[in-house]
């Protein structure tokens, strides 16, 4: 796969979702995920709904694009619930979707809200039986006394129907809010993490789960940090990592002990104590952690930067990329309007040569790890003309604002890109901008 910036020219491909100015809260996209082959793209929203798009190869009419994504299936994954014991509402918002590796004709994914994880099976049906004896074509029962002959039902082709059915429901294992799920490379287990605990499940068993990490202190007054994200290693089924609100990452090995409270590795970048401020801990909180496809590196996203860590080196990251350093002088306002608590995600490209993360004003940033070049692009309706190349954007930080640059104070902090996904094999990305899903790909000449 080609590298970035100089080599790749990103073009608009598609946009999904309504153009209304008034965005219903339920339509806000809360997670985006490609499946292992990249053929399917799943989105989850605050209304608890999942929409799956399928890649359809290019047609004769539009040979220049590498095909497009169209709706394949949509279903209501989670519904709002009320916890009667605590008098609390449980949101139906889908926090994460993770696909299982495909093992037969059907596709499986895990979707989770704050409390319950569900395993969904998405299967195709292209045939149906016709010629029943006891019921007619509309399904109404026939009078048995009127039946004078028997026939064998025949399978006839029908219009493709995609069905989604919940195969497993994993509930009642989390007291706190689930922030992550991750499928293990053994294809049998997966982990789910909430603010204080991580549980290990078997995909076939719903009435039991093993608690493998518990950081809840005996006295809640002593609570100093929470778990913010967790992920299984892509190849070593005994290794997983979890990040904390204090900016640290712990790597655990399930072979060491049943309860992995003691980490095998502890990743933390040393901080200059003289530069510490009220905001230091808040902006160091890690909002996302992702292993590279190779399994050699991991990437963490905190409020202002993205860091790449070599799993063999715990004392500092090997690469640090500034996402929007200009916000450092705006932390007071960002604290007041809560934006400082926004949780941005990050992702790798298929070859681990580039990384991507979102920012404000519908900007998103891509960094090429080899050339060290970066680019800022915008997901907007204005630049959404078919195959139009995206123009790089720039935020002016100094006093003088050049033409085409945007000043920090003009940024729209309500238009934030928290969720992005990169196709596992091609230079094709999905960017969630509030209630719209943008798909961009590189220009094919």
């Amino acid at each position, binding site marked *: 796969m080609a590298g970035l910036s100089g080599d790749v020219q990103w073009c608009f491909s598609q946009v999904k979702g309504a153009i209304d100015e008034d965005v219903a809260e339920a339509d806000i996209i809360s997670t985006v995920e490609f499946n292992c082959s990249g053929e399917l793209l799943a989105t989850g929203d605050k209304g608890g709904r999942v929409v799956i798009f399928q890649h359809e190869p290019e047609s004769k009419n539009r040979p220049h694009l590498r095909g497009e994504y169209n709706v394949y299936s949509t279903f209501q994954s989670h519904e709002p619930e*009320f916890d009667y014991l605590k*008098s*609390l509402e449980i949101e139906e918002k889908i926090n994460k979707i993770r696909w299982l590796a495909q093992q037969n004709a059907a596709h499986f994914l895990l979707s989770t809200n704050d409390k319950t994880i569900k395993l969904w099976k998405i299967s195709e049906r292209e045939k149906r039986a016709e010629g029943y004896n006891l019921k007619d074509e509309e399904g109404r029962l026939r009078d048995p006394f009127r039946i004078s002959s028997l026939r064998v039902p025949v399978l006839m082709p029908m219009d493709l129907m995609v069905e989604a059915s919940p195969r497993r429901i994993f509930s009642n294992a989390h007291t706190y809010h689930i922030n992550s799920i991750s499928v293990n490379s053994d294809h049998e287990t997966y982990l789910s993490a909430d603010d204080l605990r991580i549980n290990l499940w078997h995909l076939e068993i719903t009435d039991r789960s093993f608690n493998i990490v518990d950081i809840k202190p005996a006295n809640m007054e002593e*609570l100093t940090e929470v778990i913010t994200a967790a992920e299984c290693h892509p190849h070593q089924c005994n290794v997983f990592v979890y990040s904390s609100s204090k900016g640290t990452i712990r790597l655990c090995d399930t072979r060491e002990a049943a309860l992995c409270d003691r980490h095998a590795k502890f990743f933390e970048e040393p901080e200059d104590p003289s530069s510490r*401020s009220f905001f230091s801990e808040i902006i160091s909180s890690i909002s996302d952690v992702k292993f590279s496809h190779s399994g050699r590196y991991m990437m963490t996203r905190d409020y202002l930067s993205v860091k790449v860590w070599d799993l063999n080196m715990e004392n500092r990251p090997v690469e640090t990329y500034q996402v929007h350093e200009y916000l450092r002088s705006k932390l007071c306002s960002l604290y007041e309007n809560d934006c400082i608590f926004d949780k941005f995600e990050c992702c790798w490209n298929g070859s681990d040569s580039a990384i991507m993360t979102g920012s404000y004003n519908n900007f998103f940033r891509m960094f090429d790890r080899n050339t060290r070049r970066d680019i800022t692009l915008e997901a907007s309706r204005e630049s959404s003309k078919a195959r139009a190349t995206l123009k790089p954007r720039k935020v002016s930080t100094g006093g003088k604002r050049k033409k085409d640059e945007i000043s920090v*104070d003009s940024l729209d902090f309500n238009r934030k890109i928290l969720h992005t996904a990169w196709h596992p094999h091609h230079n094709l990305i999905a960017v969630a901008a509030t209630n719209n899903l943008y798909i961009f790909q590189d220009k094919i000449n």
Partner: protein
Amino acid sequence: SCCRRPAYRLLHLPFVRGLTSCSCTFVTSANNTAMSEEVDGAVNYEEQQEMEDKVISPEKAEEAKLKTRYPNLGAKPGGSDLLRKRLQKGQKYFDSGDYNMAKAKMKNKQLPMAPTENTGDHIPTPQDLPQRKPSIVASKLAG
């Protein structure tokens, strides 16, 4: 939508400390859209005082700004207060009755007035009934 804001963020501000549900009405002063105006050249009293800090660290300057606006903020921001409220995210209701009333209020706003229906001339059988429309609204992404 402001009622879904995690309670811990609101409890951090001194004037809403102690409130439980729906403290969002008190935070209208926080401008959610635009940033506070930073006019080049105009130096007010606070900025003058923190001019030295600004040269050293923009972060510390922002901290000073925050402290002048909220002098009662606790010394340890990332400590138990903030985290405990984060763990308790979600709007609390007094009981299930309170919850159902709130849900009903939301529904009433959305449902249009149903027109008076003509009653039929016979008792319907299951086969005569029209197919039940799904009550859940589909995602606009699938449109």
